[in-house]
């Protein structure tokens, strides 16, 4: 564990001194006899409101890591704490945005219906649910599609609906699993900025998985790079770039390129 991983993050305001998410000696293996575990001895400390990007090659376990933080998978060793409490199962305050948006949206409900799903089961009347859903969709520029079915929308819009549904959970943390992987470059860039804006507006802690190095640097306050077999965090880099970021300026910043170089070499290192 390098000093960097424990160093305070100067770029962020921290309300309290306690990190939002802590992973201690977390490992994951298919079974006890597996020669090489999926994830080995992961230690991580994420501050409240931080945007952490995780990059790594396929098979490095980043998706498994995310699913453990979400609570869908239990670690074979070590523990995960969110806001001081141990993570044992999924919860509303840790919303997870899946890459396959078409499978995560209910095809038999309209866009509004999908967002309302997050408000159901709470003590809110139907009319209120609809109103809140509509308000949320409006902030994301999706109000016009409220009565359409997900199947009729483009990929980018479907992903935004999923994000809207996750935001409707009023989470403290947003977990995103290569959310823009299936989208074209232009849509991706638009969504990157939108997520960045939403995260800072709602003061969300975000853990963002991607295999796109530049996307990771562009979005993150820190970037963790992972190696595969076993999955380990090889490097953890503070991204000291001004916010709000923009697609042209930030990407041409010499520091951006420096980070890119460093992490690129890290990723290219033979396993």
């Amino acid at each position, binding site marked *: 564990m390098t000093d960097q991983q424990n160093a305070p993050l100067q770029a962020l305001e921290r309300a309290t001194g306690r990190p939002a998410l802590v992973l201690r000696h977390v490992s994951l293996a298919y079974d006890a006899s597996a020669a090489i575990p999926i994830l080995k001895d992961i230690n991580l400390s994420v501050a409240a409101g931080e945007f952490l990007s995780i990059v790594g090659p396929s098979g490095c376990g980043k998706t498994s890591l995310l699913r453990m933080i*979400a609570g869908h998978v239990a670690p074979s060793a070590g523990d995960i704490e969110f806001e001081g409490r141990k993570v044992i199962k*999924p919860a509303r305050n840790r919303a997870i945005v*899946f890459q396959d948006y078409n499978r*995560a949206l*209910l*095809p*038999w*409900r309209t866009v509004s219906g999908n967002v309302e799903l997050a408000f159901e*089961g709470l003590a809110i009347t139907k009319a209120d649910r609809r109103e809140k859903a509509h308000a949320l969709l409006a902030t994301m520029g999706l109000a016009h599609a409220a009565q359409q079915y997900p*199947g009729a929308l483009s990929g980018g819009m479907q992903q935004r609906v999923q994000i809207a549904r996750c935001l409707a959970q009023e989470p403290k943390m947003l977990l995103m699993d290569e959310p823009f992987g299936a989208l074209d470059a232009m849509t991706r860039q638009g969504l990157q900025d939108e997520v960045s804006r939403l995260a800072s507006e709602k003061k969300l802690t975000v853990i963002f998985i991607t295999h796109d190095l530049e996307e990771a640097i562009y979005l993150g306050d820190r970037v963790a790079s992972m190696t595969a077999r076993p999955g380990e965090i090889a490097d953890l880099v503070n991204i000291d770039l001004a916010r709000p970021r923009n697609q042209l300026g930030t990407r041409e910043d010499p520091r951006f390129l420096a980070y890119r170089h460093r992490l690129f070499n890290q990723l290219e290192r033979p396993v």
Partner: protein
Amino acid sequence: MTRYSISDRVGALAFAIGILAAWQFLASFEFISPLFFPPPSRSLLALWDMIVNGQIWLPLTSTIRRMIFGWLAASVCGVLLGAIIGSSPRLRLYLEPTLEFLRPLPASAIIPAAILLLGLGPSMAISVIAFGSIWPVLLASVYGFKTRDPRLTEVAQSLEMSWVRFQLEIALPAAMPSIFAGLRVSLSISLILAVVVEMQSGQQGLGQNILLAQRNYRSAELYAGIFMLGMLGLTLNSLLSTAERRIIGWKRNAH
């Protein structure tokens, strides 16, 4: 689905009329036996008579009532059982081989045993219809509930949905397309079994009607009865399709 233009419709209609006209001609002039193939006019007249003097209603409603009761019982039980079995890998392990083995069983084969058990009355009729109709719905429901996308389960867990809400808002809607496919098949089976039961047990109904018509060599009534049964099947199928469109309309929009 082929799109039919106006000229298509005209052509199809002309063809149908042509066939009927040829039949009418051949039967009227006895090129074909009017006993076995009565001219359509006679059959239509017989049908009209039955409607006008009210003779059609009791048999028609008897058949409908019988089959709908049986079908509804089968559908409700089929969906419930299918939900339970489909959602439980354990149950499926034990039950699926048996279900698969019973799948090709002719539903009407149960009739002799049912007669021994329940006699020749309405309870036998509805039991046979229900028993025969439950299989397609059951099998389709099991399929619908077991092949649910696991991603949806994860979404539900993330939202901390209660079990009840999960079943109603996710499990059931996800299984609906399969369930409807099963319902369509079981509806046809209900009709078939209703007719068979009537023929076998002499109970009131359209099936009994046509059997009696045959025994008395009243072929016009026979054809009229067959026509009615065809219409009944068609109408019920349309109603089901309409319901299906209302409930699973979203499927059409999928990319």
